[in-house]
């Protein structure tokens, strides 16, 4: 049977719950945590890392680790200049005025960062 899920997509942490009967039940992630850090990283082997594991390597990979992506979601480049100065990764102005991230030569939009769970390779998701 189809299930209903809800996602709390936070700036710092995210959480997923599934409807079981009348109640929402939080789904734990692979590490057994109810919260998953809203961090996505592209490492030098081309792997996509999501959550705590991405957060842990952030300091070694500042340009390839995107955090607080929600802060840039739905905002125009001109509206978020002060925030952009505070993050170590590269932001650029898309042709339509939106904000994009430049990660290891790849253009990524803020919503794409948030759906990066789908890109993560099985190696990472089973860790």
């Amino acid at each position, binding site marked *: 049977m189809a299930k209903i899920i809800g996602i709390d997509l936070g700036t710092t942490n995210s959480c997923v719950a599934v409807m*079981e*009967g009348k109640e929402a039940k939080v789904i734990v992630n692979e*590490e*057994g945590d109810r919260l998953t850090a809203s961090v996505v990283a592209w490492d*030098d082997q081309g792997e996509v*890392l999501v959550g705590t*594991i*991405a957060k*842990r*390597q*952030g*300091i*070694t990979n500042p340009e390839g680790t995107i955090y607080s992506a929600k802060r840039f979601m739905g905002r125009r480049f001109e509206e978020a200049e002060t925030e952009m100065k505070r993050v170590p990764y590269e932001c650029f102005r898309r042709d339509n005025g939106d904000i994009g991230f430049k990660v290891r030569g790849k253009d990524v939009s803020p919503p794409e960062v948030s759906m990066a769970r789908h890109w993560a390779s099985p190696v990472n998701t089973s*860790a």
Partner: protein
Amino acid sequence: MTKDPESKAAAQENIVPEEADTPEAEVPAEAETLRAEAMAHRERSLRLAAEMENVRRRAARELESAHRFALERFAGELLPVVDSLELALGAAETVPEGLEMTLKLLRDVLVRHHIEAVTPVEGDAFDPGLHEAMATQPSAEMAPDCILQVVQKGYRIHDRLLRPARVIVARALDGSA
């Protein structure tokens, strides 16, 4: 059902009454059966819903108690460690030896609960699955992304990381990166 013989008799006498009578005679009977069946289903679905709710509540209660008992046992096993530490501190001249024994007790408890140390050594490749980078430092001797220094060891419980090992990671010398 009681009208059946009549309607059959009517059908034998004349074709017209059959068309008119048979549906009238059979429909109420069938409707009655269906209604009874529907009632039975409704009853059953209500019972199942109630049972589901009970199962869910019981599962929640059991889970909670499982959590509590797991912690109780663990805490219980840690108590000798506390005792031992108190004894060691009470006998000042044997503190180093006492502390060593205490540490061994504590480690044994951890191992019994499948809690094992994650102890990377300098030169190991940095693995965000096990290690957390506290800082990076330029290094001429160490290859980039290798562990330069272990700040604090990590722990694993079963196959899950309890705490990552905190490390300082080497990076290429500034300018050459």
